[in-house]
């Protein structure tokens, strides 16, 4: 890339950042996100492997919060705050990876459904509507059961059940862009379908895809928690959903071990909230109708 282009991009990012900094909700979301991402990255470095090993756990079972165990211990005497930190890693990884899958499928289906006319488009729109109306949980449970419990399968299951909303949105935007004269111009100069979709439609729908991504991540993390809580995730990976499942099955609620039940739930709510705040802020800033610059 030439220097001019690099400078222009720097300047554009500078303008974007200035606007974003004044969006209080967006900044709050961003700070929460940065905190969780740091925890996720640093977890394997700061936490010794022994801490998660049931056979080497040194605490009492269901011990309340103390100096040695700030959030108490679980049913086998492991420190809950360390488990929670490790869970951040898995929940965020699954959330972001599944969102990527959903976004790629959703954008591709949306652009194709908007670009092509005729039977092919009807099939794509029909498939989108089918995925929109079918209840998420039964479908996800069936898929997860068929594929078997593992983190990768969880990503696939959530990815292929969460793209329909994005596809709808992108199709609508594509239809509007297809009517613009520069698409007619590109047809007149001999461009094929692939060229029109990748060179003209995609760059114009990309801001919408980005804003929608952060909103989808929030939903996907909730889905991951739900499926793990139902025991459909990797049983060996202590994600937040899996922690809640364990708390439930070991009777933590009836024992009054609130430190086992509340923190994973609060973490999920915080991350979902943070992604939603950031997503809404991006939407506000990237939407050309609201632009002040």
């Amino acid at each position: 890339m030439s220097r001019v282009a690099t400078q222009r991009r720097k300047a554009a990012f500078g303008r974007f950042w200035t606007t974003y900094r004044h969006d209080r909700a967006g900044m709050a979301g961003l700070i929460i996100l940065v905190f969780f991402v740091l925890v996720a990255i640093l977890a394997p470095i700061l936490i010794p492997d022994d801490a998660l090993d049931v056979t080497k756990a040194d605490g009492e079972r269901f011990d309340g919060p103390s100096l040695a165990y700030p959030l108490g211990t679980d049913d086998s005497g492991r420190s809950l705050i360390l488990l929670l930190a490790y869970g951040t890693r898995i929940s965020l990884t699954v959330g972001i990876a599944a969102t990527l899958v959903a976004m790629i499928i959703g954008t591709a289906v949306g652009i194709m459904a908007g670009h092509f006319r005729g039977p092919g488009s009807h099939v794509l729109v029909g498939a989108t509507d089918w995925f929109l109306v079918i209840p998420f949980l039964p479908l996800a449970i069936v898929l997860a059961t068929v594929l078997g419990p593992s983190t990768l399968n969880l990503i696939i299951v959530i990815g292929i059940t969460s793209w329909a909303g994005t596809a709808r949105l992108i199709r609508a935007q594509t239809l509007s862009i297809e009517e613009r004269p520069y698409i007619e111009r590109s047809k007149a100069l001999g461009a094929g379908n692939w060229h029109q979709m990748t060179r003209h439609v995609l760059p114009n729908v990309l801001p919408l895809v980005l804003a929608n991504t952060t909103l989808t991540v929030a939903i996907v993390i909730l889905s991951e928690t739900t499926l793990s809580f139902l025991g459909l995730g990797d049983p060996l990976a202590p994600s937040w959903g899996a922690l809640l499942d364990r708390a439930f099955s070991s009777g933590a609620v009836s024992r009054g071990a609130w430190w086992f039940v509340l923190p994973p739930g609060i973490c999920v709510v915080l991350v979902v909230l943070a992604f939603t705040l950031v997503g809404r802020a991006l939407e506000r800033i990237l939407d050309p109708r609201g632009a002040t610059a």
Partner: protein
Amino acid sequence: MSLLEFRDVTVDYASAEGPIPAVRGVTLLVERGEVLGIAGESGCGKSTLAATVLRLLPENAAIGGEMLLDDVDVLTMKWGKLRSVRWAEAAIVFQGALHALNPVQSIGDQIAEPIRLHKTAKDVDARVAQLLMQVGLPASRAKSYPHQLSGGQRQRVMIAMALACSPDLIVADEPTTALDVMVLAQVLDLLTGLVRDLGMGMVLISHDLGVLGTTCDRIAVMYAGQVVETGAALEIFDHPKHPYTKALAGAFPRVGDPAARYAPVGLPGDPPYPGDIPAGCAFHPRCPIAVDECTSASVALVDGVRCIRVGA
């Protein structure tokens, strides 16, 4: 061998009320190095006619007749052949340059688009720079985005794009819409100058008979999907024969011509709705010299004029 030949071209748009004729049998010729002007009101079918050249009409349009580009009928071309002909043999300068440019790509990339698609030049950057110079823009402008240019500059970019693959024919569909008269004159001079220098043919579409009279070699005046008068540009501008052409020419007062100042100008009524074209001569409800015969007789194009009162 003509560069472009319309042979009895018809276009019907399918609608709920049945087919609506937009173009009703147009026969025209364009030679190399010649500029043909097409004049007419909004809705007379001139833009539809332009779009048939590269078969750019929407799917509900049914095209009849023959459209020969270098003696090959465009209307029966296979899809792959059509794509390779588009822009490489005939290019279009669209109206409204701002909307015909993609806002998120630099203009250099957009001018390069047809060159890359048709692989007509090896050094794409050099060709883009050369094209920008040809239309009077500095080569460094290639890095600009459409919103950074003025209206006239954008139209120059559109012209550079049309020239990119050195086509034989350029179709300019109201290239001067929304430009002020100074820029309008510059853009038209540039366009006609390039067409003559490079030996191309051009079809220039406009509602402004004055513009066409000074830039074209020949003019065809269209009304309700038909050519009503055709001939040498100055002849049509100075001595219009058809009553519709007279009204069009009368709409542009000439400086220093006292007779024009007092002559009645304007034309009552609106052009007919294409789905409900009057019988006989399509122009008779608005015609100042219409007689009873005009409402029923079919009128043919005789000596370049479609009117039974002329030459009779």
